[in-house]
C-alpha cells in the first residue's frame, strides 16, 4: 500500500534533476519527453507505491515544487511545523 506520495508542480520545475538524484526510492524521473512553459524538462513522479514520503526530494528542491503526503496520521503539530519536522 502506498505510504507516501508527492505532487510535483511541474510548471515551477526547472528540471534541475536534484530531486530525482536524491530520492532514495528512485521514483522521480526527469521527463525528457516534454518541456514545460518555461522551457525545462520537468521532474516526474512515478507513483509506483515505493514512495515513503520521506520528503528528501522536497528538502532539496530549490524551487519548492514538491508537496509531500504521507499516510501515517500526522502528529498534533500544525501542518507547517510538520514540514519542518521533516527536515
Amino acid at each position, binding site marked *: 500500500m502506498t505510504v507516501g506520495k508527492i505532487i510535483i508542480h511541474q510548471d515551477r520545475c*526547472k528540471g534541475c534533476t*536534484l530531486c530525482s538524484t536524491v530520492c532514495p526510492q528512485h521514483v522521480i524521473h526527469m521527463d525528457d519527453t516534454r518541456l514545460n512553459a518555461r522551457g525545462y524538462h520537468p521532474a516526474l513522479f512515478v507513483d509506483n507505491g515505493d514512495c515513503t514520503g520521506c520528503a528528501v526530494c522536497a528538502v532539496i528542491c*530549490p524551487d519548492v515544487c514538491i508537496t509531500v503526503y504521507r499516510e501515517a496520521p500526522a502528529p498534533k503539530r500544525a501542518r507547517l511545523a510538520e514540514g519542518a519536522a521533516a527536515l
Partner: protein
Amino acid sequence: MVDMVMAPPEMQVVYDYPDSLTDTPTSYCPGCTHGIAHRLVAEVLDELGLREQTVLVSPVGCSVFIYQYFNLDACVAPHGRAPAMATGIKRMLPNHIVFTYQGDGDLVSIGAAEILHAAARGEKITTIFINNAIYGMTGGQMAPTSLPGQKTTSSPTGRDIVSTGNPIRMSEVIAQLDGAAYIVRRSLHDVASIRKAKKAILTAFKVQMAGLGFSMVELLSSCPTNWGIAPETALEWIEQNMLPYYPVGDFKVRDDVKAL
C-alpha cells in the same frame, strides 16, 4: 500558494509551500541553491510566526529579486549596504525582526565594512550569507571567496593567490567581534546539510528575538551556471572543493546563545 487540485484527500501533507513565500517563481537558474536557502528562511519565519513582523533587506546580486519571493515587507539596499540599511530599519523598529540576505560579493567584497560594523555594534539583525564563491549576477567574476585556482570570468586561468590573496573566510573574521552573538557556517550541498542549515537559521532568528546581538548563518551555496557545471555536480563541487576550505562549524556561539 501553489495549486492543490491534485492533492490526494486521504493523505496528510508533510511538506508544503511555506506561507512566508509568495508564489512568484524565482529567476534563479535551475538547481541554484539560492532557492533552497529561501525556502529554509521562509519555513523558519513560518514556524516562529514572524511573517507579519519581519522586514527583509535584499542585496544586489542574483537574489536582488528576493523581495518578490518573500511575502514580507521588504526593501533593496545598494550593493553591499544591506547591513547599514537594516541597521536604520532595526533602530526604528526595535521590536521587529530585520534580516539581510547577502551574497559573497555583496557581503565580503563591497560590503565588508558594513557587515563588520553591524556585527561589531551587535546590531540585532540576522544575516543569511550565501557564499557561492562567485559573483553570480554579473556573470561569474571572481569573488573574494573564490577558491585558489578557481576559473572565473575575471580570473580565466584560475584565481592567482599571489596577486589576489587567499579567499576570505568571513565567518571566522566576524566571529572575532564581541557584538557577534551567533556566527556559524553550514552547507546546502545535501539533504542532511540542508537540515542542519535550517536549524542554524532557526537559532539565528531566535537570537534576534531574544535581542542577544548580531547573528549570521553562512551557507555554502552552488552556482551551476557560472561554475559551468550541472546542478548535481555543483553540489559535489561544494562538498569536494568548498568544504575543505570553508569548514562548516560554529565560529561564535556566545554563552547567552547557548542558554537559549
